[in-house]
């Protein structure tokens, strides 16, 4: 018995499709209903998201110069290379052209400080795609937002490098120095109780990660996505709303100590998070109620971490934490099946 088991081939050969003799067009197609489908597809969505990210990239290059450009390119290339390598090793179809790796690369780059060393960015990209996505089986199966996972890994691996910020070129030029190490608006708020003017935050005239600075560029991209119908309006709106409400409560309690809600929304990663990470389809709930829970709790966590926690910024952790809860949320917020529950057919 043992012997025969050993002999048995591990790989079961798939039948080789035979070339049909007759012209295949003469044969009718059969498929299960519906035989019809929407024109949207994954590639289209992904490419639109990339397009929507361009303003933010452009803004970061404007403010931080070539450093930003190199960082973005490095992340994209490293992400695509990792995806390619993983899929080759697993002998799965290579899907680096579907754009999802590019998005991860851009998003990762946008969360890094401009002076971040490129080798570390490569490490982050490998982690983002390798650990964040491919280990779960690739696009669609990942639990955590890959870009944020990569960034969280880097934050833990290189805590110093990732908190070393520089002033944007626009300010540095004014001060006549090349690159000045500086604090982000949130760090200034937290440790030195200085509030950066809202206008600077809006246009991006502050120190910070590539994509944290210019709120307006991100809003542009986000609105474009919304216009194309690829993001659910609930997600950014709920997230901002939740941040504003909880931030506002703190502000009302002590306006001197805590910043106003608008500051919360404009500073740090809240913009990028709200438009491009909370709206990530794969890692957020699919049910209507679940989506509300996700954004509200995430917004709450942001405020708590920013104001009471040890770290100045909480957007990344708030989203990662909620990502981990997403499967549970999905399971427990199943919409009520039509006609389910109650006898109330007549009243319903």
């Amino acid at each position, binding site marked *: 018995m043992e012997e025969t088991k050993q002999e048995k081939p591990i790989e079961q050969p798939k039948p080789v499709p035979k070339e049909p003799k007759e012209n*295949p*067009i003469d044969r*009718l*197609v*059969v*498929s*299960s*209903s*519906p*035989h*019809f*489908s*929407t024109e*949207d*597809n*994954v590639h*289209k*969505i992904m490419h639109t998201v990339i397009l929507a990210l361009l303003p933010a990239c452009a803004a970061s290059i404007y403010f931080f110069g070539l450093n930003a450009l190199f960082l973005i390119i490095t992340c994209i290339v490293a992400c695509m290379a990792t995806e390619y390598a993983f899929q080759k090793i697993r002998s799965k179809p290579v899907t680096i052209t*579907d754009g999802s790796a590019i998005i991860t690369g851009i998003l990762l780059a946008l969360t890094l400080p401009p002076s971040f060393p490129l080798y570390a960015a490569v490490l982050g990209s490998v982690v983002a795609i390798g650990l964040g996505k491919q280990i779960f*089986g*690739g*696009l*669609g*199966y990942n639990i955590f937002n890959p870009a944020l996972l990569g960034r969280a890994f880097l934050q833990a691996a290189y805590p110093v490098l990732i908190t070393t910020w520089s002033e944007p070129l626009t300010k540095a030029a004014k001060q006549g120095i090349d690159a000045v190490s500086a604090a982000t608006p949130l760090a200034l708020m937290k440790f030195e109780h200085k509030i950066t003017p809202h206008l600077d935050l809006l246009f991006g005239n502050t120190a910070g990660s590539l994509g944290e600075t210019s709120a307006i560029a991100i809003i542009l991209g986000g609105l474009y996505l919304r216009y194309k119908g690829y993001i*659910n309006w609930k997600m950014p709106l709920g997230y901002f709303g939740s941040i504003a409400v909880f931030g506002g409560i703190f502000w009302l309690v002590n306006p001197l100590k805590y910043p106003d809600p608008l500051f919360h929304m404009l500073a740090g990663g809240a913009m990028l998070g709200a438009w491009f990470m909370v709206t990530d*389809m*794969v*890692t*957020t*709930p*699919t*049910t*209507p109620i679940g*989506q509300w829970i996700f954004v509200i709790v995430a917004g709450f966590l942001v405020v708590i971490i920013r104001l009471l926690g040890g770290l100045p910024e909480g957007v990344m952790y708030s989203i990662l934490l909620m990502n981990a809860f997403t499967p549970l949320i*999905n399971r427990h917020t*199943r*919409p*009520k*099946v*039509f*006609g*389910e529950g*109650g*006898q*109330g*057919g*007549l009243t*319903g």
Partner: protein
Amino acid sequence: MTLKTFKHGIHPDYHKELTAGKKTERAQLPKKVVIPLQQHIGAPCQPLVKKGDTVTEGQKIGDAAAFVTSPVHSTINGKVKEIEKHPHPVGGKIMSVIIEGDGSVKEWGNGSIGLDADTLTSETIKNAIKEAGIVGMGGAAFPTVVKLSPPKDKKIDSVILNGCECEPYLTSDHRLMIEEPEKILWGMKAIMKALGVSSGYIGIEENKPDAIDALEKAKKSIIPDLKIVPLETKYPQGAEKMLIKAILKRRVPVGKLPMDVGVVVHNIGTAKAVYDAVKYQKPLLERVVTISGNGINEPKNLMVRIGTSFDEVINQCGGMKKGLEKLVIMGGPMMGIAQTNLDVPVIKGTSGITVLAGDAIRPAEYQPCIRCGGCVETCPVNLMPYRLTDYARFNEPDRFKAWGGISCIECGCCSFSCPSNRPLVQWLRVGKLRVREAEKAGSR
């Protein structure tokens, strides 16, 4: 005023312009018809004729003793050539009577339009409908008389005529409403009489204003207090449960019938057939079939004898386009059934024949689910299809059932809206099958 509708659903391209403006033409008399002995939900009929018998148009050739069943009739004059298993458009092979025609046509009465409603009793109407073999003509083919005979404990208070025709491409009901509104309304009146119900509704999607006009105009003299309800154009507006929700705001509970909330829903075509049956004792011999789709050379609405083969019908519409992959569907593209063989006959439930070609066919390849939630957002019965399909694929009938999978109405919204092009409905069907299997095994 916002239009009445239900929650969720989708807005596909309807492509109704191909045939919506085309008057219904009478198809050529077929030389041979294949009458399957089962064209309805319920017990199959036993043949009443033998090979070699001569039959006339309208002669009953098959019947069964069961309650839920419907007799079948010969649709031409001729001779029974064979009684054997023949491919059926719903799939598989069904015992069918094959009749070779002699080319003659029977005349059914042709008097003034209208019924002598006062002299008709509920029983005579029901009897006429039963004898005429009328089944729901929207596709499900449930025997009409059964719907008209509710159990005593179920009080029916409303009748809805379903004129939504939400399936893309199909226009057969639309044409019927424009061309024969009086007959439909008289049929409706007979149905209401049979049920003893006074409140009637006709639900029509607002993309058919001409049909609404025609019915509004005609109803004044026939049933003045009938309500014609324009509905939002949205798929699947025509699904029974959705229609009842939209018009009466009632929810049919899971696993229950419209009857349970006091409603009976009939199709437009059924109403017209009821009129014919009651007025002329004419069985269901022919029906309007929309032949459309981008693979058809001349899309048309045809009045076709039941039993005519698809091949013959398609040939009368200029045939199919050459050089492209083609998909022939009985019904519309959302819920219709793909055909492997064009030898199958038109049956009572064939509302259309849609031929898709080339790029219009959904590709076979699909990508992994990106959990966009599109299927959850569009599902009219509030399911989570992406999750249910996992349960179906990994054969977990318990979970499938617990998550409400058996409530799926297979409308196809989920697959339609899936950006990864996943065959969700197919998996859901597998899941439902597995639940049934598990239940059978459990009760064993």
